[in-house]
């Protein structure tokens, strides 16, 4: 192609582009449709449709084609064992989320307020993500087991007289969850705290508030949205977890994710597994709604409320 023809082609492309621009400018609804349709289609095909199929499966006696029934949901709400497991899952999720949020907020706050090497610390925070989830859990088995790394370190410094053997306990499950999901809490907290206007803190101090009062009346309320995002990012995956309690927990740490997995790969009761999954999805949605009613805006990490 000769270089002499290039300006002509460029001019044609520019004309065509302008023509499309004016075409769309005159048809604002079509413009919105073209912008919204592709992501809506992706959400419908990859998120909504599987959920609808899961709901359909949960209303069948077995694998399709099969007669319709509410039996799976009746079993879930009438048998104490499943309600009890759902409650235990909620308690473990709440405990792990609160601890993760507290630790994550403290790390993010110290990074923003006191640290110079924030990039390095952020890198350290997300570094565990480079390693496979299960391998990280096996690493914790080595750390927490009787006479493992933790026991050896505590014995060495004289903090304990005999091995603790934290592994296979409720505490081990909480440690595993905190470790796995801490980065998901730190990142939104860091973003939220970074946006916080330093002038507001200075103004609070100038008006006579001490550091604690300034934190409680300025910093915390201004980063509320970031905290809610962190709670959601941590709480939702913990609620459905099954690997961590399986590998680190004892005999009384059964969570609903483990029961769901059993239905699909061991008991071959996909309909009941689907009913459990849909129930968990409803609980998660309820958590989101409650979060929003509590004043969280998950789509705004900024430090200022609208």
């Amino acid at each position, binding site marked *: 192609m000769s270089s002499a023809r290039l300006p002509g082609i460029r001019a044609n492309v520019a004309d065509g582009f302008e023509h499309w621009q004016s075409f769309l400018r005159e048809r604002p609804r079509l413009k919105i449709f073209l912008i919204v349709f592709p992501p809506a289609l992706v959400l419908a095909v990859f998120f909504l449709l599987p959920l609808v199929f899961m709901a359909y499966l949960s209303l069948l006696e077995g694998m399709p084609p099969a007669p319709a029934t509410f039996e799976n949901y009746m079993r879930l709400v009438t048998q104490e064992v499943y309600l009890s497991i759902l409650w235990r899952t909620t308690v473990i999720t709440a405990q792990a989320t609160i601890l993760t949020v507290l630790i994550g907020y403290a790390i993010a706050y110290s990074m923003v307020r006191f640290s110079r090497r924030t990039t390095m610390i952020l890198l350290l925070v997300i570094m565990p993500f480079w390693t496979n989830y299960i391998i990280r859990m096996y690493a914790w088995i080595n750390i927490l087991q009787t006479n493992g790394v933790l026991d050896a370190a505590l014995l060495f410094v004289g903090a304990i007289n005999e091995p603790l053997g934290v592994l296979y306990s409720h505490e081990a499950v909480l440690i595993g969850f905190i470790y796995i999901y801490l980065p998901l809490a730190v990142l939104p907290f860091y973003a939220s705290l970074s946006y916080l206007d330093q002038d507001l803190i200075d103004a609070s101090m100038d008006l006579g508030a001490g550091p604690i009062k300034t934190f409680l009346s300025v910093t915390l309320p201004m980063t509320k949205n970031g905290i809610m995002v962190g709670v959601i990012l941590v709480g939702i995956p913990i609620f459905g977890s099954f690997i961590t309690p399986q590998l680190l927990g004892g*005999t009384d740490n059964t969570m609903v994710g483990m029961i769901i997995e059993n239905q699909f790969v*061991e008991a071959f009761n996909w309909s009941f597994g689907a009913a459990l999954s849909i129930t968990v999805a409803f609980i998660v949605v309820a958590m989101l709604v409650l979060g929003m009613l509590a004043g969280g805006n998950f789509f705004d990490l900024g430090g200022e409320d609208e």
Partner: protein
Amino acid sequence: MVEENISRRTVLKTTAAGGAAAAAGCLGGDDGREYVRPIDIDLDDVEPENEINMWNWFYDFRDWTVEEFSAEYGIESSSSTGYSSAAEWYSRLEAGNHAIDHVGSTGNYTVRSVENDFFEPLPVDQFEGWEALPDFLQDTMHDYAGKDGEVYAMPQSLLLYPTLTYNEDHFSSPPDSWGVLWDEEYAGDICMWDEAQYPCQIAALYTDQDPFDPDDLDEIQEVLEQQIDLNETLWDEYNHARGLFVNEDVVVGPLLDGQTYLARFEDEAPINYTIPEEGGLYQLDDMAIPTDCPNPRAATLLMDWVTQPDNLKNIFHESGYPPAIDHDDFEELYAEDLEEGTITEEEIEFFRWGELEDRLMFAEPLGDDLLQTYDQIWTEVKN
């Protein structure tokens, strides 16, 4: 901004490359010839396709098989895939367009795959490995992996599932009863398999019931409720279970003979197994050819090749599990290896069932009703 652009471009490139690779994998690699059912293939007169895709959970044995078989038959493109749960390949077969030529299966997954026509019937009469199987294994395959007189899978490994595994430093002689799992002396040093059917079947054996057709489910639940608090933990993953014994977190509990072997001979832990007087179960891991596999000729030749005793015996060398042959024939099969020192008499003796064979019964896959009843019992016990 420049960094952002580079990173976005890199991400797009990576995504495109990943998509192309995935598409290539999904499309399979047949050479344009029509699909032929393995049962219709004459092994003396068949030219394999130029590709083979093998899925098996014995990782090292799988890699060894693909490499050796491809070299022997001049197959240029081969892939091997591992999985931790049979559910991974089963869901692919359900979805269709699976691109799997040869798959390792077991128990309920084999039964369900045969029922749903996910597996092809095999020309077993042409397989050298089939002829070498003892009668009881041929009968078992007909019963459990057969339909309308055809056989749909070839045995791969013959497993004790579960063994009663124990630490020799804590037991002067092998425990003779499953009752050791209920012995308070070992409270906190016991583990239990966290897969509903196994604790329930162990409880059935312990209470002198038929583990495949128990007549008192309440008693099974009752004894499991007595047992659950004696456990240090429950396990659901084999390496985790082996680690429990090797690290001495537990000293007795159900395991597999293969994992017990690895603990004893590779990890050099004082771990051994027994089959209690109440009885125990054995199970087959098997291999099958999925329906509509992309390379049926190569898959059938691979099935014939890998099940020949001289090849199948390498599952022991590569993965530490015993091949599916009569264990009394081990000495003859591994005679050369014994001479070369790649296997020891002690290792062979470890897998030989000997007098324990009288206590064993085949772990026939359970029907849906009993499986779900066991699941309900175990869920309630854990709660």
